[in-house]
């Protein structure tokens, strides 16, 4: 919606000679006028100079954060004053609101960017060593140099645990969503209520639930499988709920068209509803997966940290990347912290790959339809 066109003026019929109405120009909404641009640039520069003078020279304060805040406040004041000289009040308010919104977006961008870049920057030293990817931490002390030990066990553990959790929660989650949207019945409302309620379950309680039932009550050992089950418990409601939202947005006309062509409901769901919602379902899956990959608390409780490579999810504890990061950083040794950041970078990379792959898949499927 870039421009608003107005209906052509109709000349009043009473006039004897119809006057040619002046050509209406659509009102430009998105463009900046020269006035706005110059007051913006001028206020930015002026407030910077002013604050630098007062802050650094006259008051001799220090601190980048304080400087930025003062600059921002001075900028807002100057911008408002300059705008008010030649514009009515609504325009002043509009420009101040615009400046505030843009700065807030910038703050979030800086926060996100600093999170990602700082983690990767700190992770580089560990990632430069090949053994970081090919060894586990058995027999390695936290203080040992980075040339020894690695996070292979945590990578393998994360992949196995998340794979099991997805294998359990994906069919259950999407099946529940299909039940809630496609199959009528009084029970589906109850299911929806309970599933929505369980998205509120703090992740640590899922771990504590598995710990108390499986491990304490039934005496199973703490294993990767227990951690995967705890992850699945946190994932099912997330996937079910976001998948349900997606399925509900599938237009009813498509379903009716499928049924009107004589297809059974199952065929309609399989060939019309699910393919239409594929992109959204992929997003639901990735939301759940990204959550599970980064989940620390359930693994901490249900499996516990380990230092050795373990491919068997039903025997012995299995570490995961987030848990490895947590234990490494908690030890407080510089080498261990470095390893922790290396693992965090790997974890971020994993999340990023998941993210990009799902985006790509979703886009491709939509394009082909």
């Amino acid at each position: 919606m870039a421009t608003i066109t107005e209906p052509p003026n109709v000349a009043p019929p009473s006039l004897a000679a119809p006057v040619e109405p002046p050509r209406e120009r659509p009102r430009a909404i998105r463009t900046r006028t020269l006035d706005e641009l110059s007051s913006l640039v001028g206020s930015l520069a002026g407030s910077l100079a002013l604050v630098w003078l007062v802050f650094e020279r006259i008051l001799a304060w220090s601190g980048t954060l304080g400087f930025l805040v003062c600059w921002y406040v001075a900028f807002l004041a100057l911008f408002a004053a300059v705008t008010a000289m030649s514009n009515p009040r609504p325009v002043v308010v509009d420009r101040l609101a615009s400046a505030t919104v843009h700065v807030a977006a910038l703050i979030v961008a800086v926060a996100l960017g600093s999170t990602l870049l700082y983690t990767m920057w700190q992770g580089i030293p560990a990632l430069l060593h090949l053994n970081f990817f090919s060894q586990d931490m058995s027999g390695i002390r936290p203080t040992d140099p980075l040339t020894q030990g690695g996070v292979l066990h945590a990578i393998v553990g994360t992949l196995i645990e998340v794979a099991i959790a997805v294998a359990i929660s994906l069919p259950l989650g999407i099946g529940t969503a299909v039940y809630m949207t496609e199959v009528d019945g009084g029970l589906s409302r109850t299911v929806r209520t309970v599933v929505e309620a369980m998205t509120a379950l703090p992740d640590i309680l899922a771990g504590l639930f598995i710990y108390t039932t499986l491990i304490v009550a039934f005496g199973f050992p703490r294993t990767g499988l227990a951690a995967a089950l705890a992850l699945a418990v946190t994932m099912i409601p997330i996937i079910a709920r976001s998948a349900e939202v997606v399925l509900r947005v599938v237009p009813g006309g498509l379903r009716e068209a499928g049924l009107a062509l004589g297809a059974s409901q199952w065929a309609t769901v399989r060939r019309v509803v699910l393919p239409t919602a594929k992109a959204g379902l992929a997003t639901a899956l990735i939301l759940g997966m990204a959550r599970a990959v980064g989940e620390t608390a359930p693994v901490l409780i249900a499996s516990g940290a380990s230092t050795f490579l373990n491919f068997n999810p039903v025997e012995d504890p299995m570490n995961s990347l987030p848990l490895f990061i947590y234990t490494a950083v908690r030890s407080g040794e510089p080498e261990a912290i470095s390893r922790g950041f290396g693992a965090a970078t790997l974890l971020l990379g994993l999340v990023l790959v998941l993210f990009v792959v799902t985006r790509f898949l979703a886009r491709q499927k939509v394009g082909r339809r």
Partner: protein
Amino acid sequence: MTVTTAAAPAPDVVPDDEPRILDPGLARTDRVFHNVARAIGVFVLVLTGSIGLFLGYQAIPTLRRYGLSFFTESQWEPERDVIGISSVLLGTLEVALVALVVAFPLALALALYISEYAPPKLKSTCVSLVDLMAAVPSIVYGLWGFFLLQPNVIFLSRWLSQHLAFLPIFKVDTDPNAAVWAQSRYTASAFIAGLAVAMMVLPLACAVMRGVFAAAPIGEREAAFALGATRWGMIRSVVLPFGRGGIIGGTMLGLGRALGETVAVLLIISPAFDIKFHILEVGTQTTSALIAGRFGEATASQLSALLTAGFVLFVITLGVNTVAAVFVGRSRSGASTEI
């Protein structure tokens, strides 16, 4: 107006009319489909429902043993048989509130930026970035908060305690104006943990708000512009009133997330079981951090006490999320989408 049908001449013998069955019933595939779907639904219902019931059931013996003092006692010392969650709940709320106070304006402004201000080409990138922000593991935000934020934020904490100490929440029990000020008094506080949690709340709240803003009716937007409104005028008179449900609901969803956050908080705070409102000061405790820290050496009865603390947390987040769902649900209209 009545519809008359051509009445056939009445036959001599009237056979018993069987009404034609209009509903053919379900095909076999559909019956299987319905039953399988129902089975999955019921299974998930039982599974998830049993967790809630289990937590509630586990809470009974603890509540019976400690009674109301479970909610008023601040110390958690199972070895002395003194167990209570008042300080823990207070810490949980403090961290969550700090997170909300920081995240809410940013999320609102970011959602407005994406839906109203961003250039059209940048819009989908921004949406992806917010989704990415939601997908970043909480431990990474914990690292960010602990290693990057904390050394910088203590100066802000000190400044706040210097100038706003007349408000009890900004007070710190040390002299902020000392030449060599006690930096460690400002670390590991609820404030810093709240800032890290805000990074997790923000994308969640922003996504909900943006969805509602984008659904604001285009006709009313154009009407506002046609009446000569500035962009902010349009936002204030159309987008914000239309999205009010989403703003409240998204914020409360974020609050639910903030209350349950574990590992970022666990990494940043140093545990302390005092009832205190000084959010800038070192030491606090949250429910999930308590559970993560204590479950390992817990005996059966202590485990039950931890489960009770967890249950209380769950009830709170459940209440918050339910209210949020009511608000968000009012503004969601997916069911009526037509081609």
